[in-house]
């Protein structure tokens, strides 16, 4: 967990104004400590790096960024939920249920419903 000064030092292409604008758009949502300062966790730092790469390396302008971020958030959401579901099945579902599920999914994949 780091503050905004450390963050700006870590990414040479990043300016404090960028972070403040992205926070105003809700693209980045760091925690605010009891003392009122910003605390960027690992996920916030990684997200800022991704936004920088999208903007600078892939030339996605800031006007198009909300579309890309929204789609990515939905993609990761769905993948997180699938992963959690998969974990839950491994832990809770009996082996024959998992096998029946796998068989059924394989049938769907091969188009035989």
């Amino acid at each position, binding site marked *: 967990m780091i503050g905004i000064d450390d963050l700006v030092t870590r990414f040479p292409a990043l300016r404090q104004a960028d972070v403040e604008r992205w926070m105003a758009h809700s693209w980045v949502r760091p925690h605010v400590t009891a003392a009122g300062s910003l605390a960027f966790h*690992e*996920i916030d730092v990684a*997200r800022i790096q991704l936004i920088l790469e999208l903007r600078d390396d892939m030339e996605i302008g800031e006007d198009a960024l909300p579309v890309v971020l929204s789609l990515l958030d939905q993609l990761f959401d769905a993948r997180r939920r699938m992963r959690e579901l998969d974990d839950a099945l491994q832990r809770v579902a009996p082996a024959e249920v998992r096998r029946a599920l796998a068989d059924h999914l394989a049938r769907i994949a091969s188009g035989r419903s």
Partner: protein
Amino acid sequence: MDDPYATLGLAKDASADDIRAAYRKLAKQHHPDLNPGDAQAEERFKAISAAHALLSDPEKKAQFDRGEIDASGEPSRAWRSYRDHAEGSAGRRYSRGPSAEGWAADDLGDLFGSMFGGGRSADGEIKLRGRDEFYSLSVAFLDAVNGATRRLTLPDGKTLDLKIPAGMEDGQTLRLKGEGGPGWNGGPSGDALVQLTVEPHPYFTREGDDIRLELPVTLKEAVLGGPVEAPTPGGRVRVRVPAGSDSGTELRLRGRGIPARQGRPAGDLYAVLRVRIGKPDPELEAFLRDWTPEHGTNPRETMEARS
């Protein structure tokens, strides 16, 4: 590490702009956060990043070009995948949907409902439509032509009265709304889908909306003509055979094919005559022995001319 120029698909004399453009193009394609679950994209992206890091630094690029350093010395940037965080529990903070709060105890339907558009009722509970169930049913030719009602017994013992509309064709499917699997949590039932197989008929065959029938006639009926009875899907009708008919003569019975339905006019029935000589008849034989045809022709003439 491979040649950084080759990794970016560039020639040795590539300019700084070429290098930047090539890197941008490849990054868009292979960025691991845009290709979750694709380990190859991740490896490729690491190679691209390392190649770009070396070639975008004029000093290092010059050293590499002079052969003073090789590409393997380039430390790959400490790169943290946003995806790894986003797909973990910390990722809920940037979640867009109803999953932001995690799972509720009765949440399974909610997940799939919200992912795939199941309806949400006023009390916030998800209702899901039941699954469609598939059956196949053989129907007699005439039932398919004229329409019929057939009672179906489903695997669960439930019976269904299936109304087969007139003119159904082999392979067509009937949808019975709400007769499939039960809905979840008060959602609507799925549908039952019944695929029809039409059994062949001993003397009718179907061609679109028309029906063909091979109609046997006696020699006398063929030569002298006259009324005969012919079966049709709607019952027997009297047909006038013209005098001097032959095997293969087609009689068209307008409107006696597939019945009219939903704006389509009824099809026709084509009766194709087939002359049957029948059992030996001494009188007929005696007549033919003494008979000299008025127009003696050889029906195989054209065949002989060609062979």
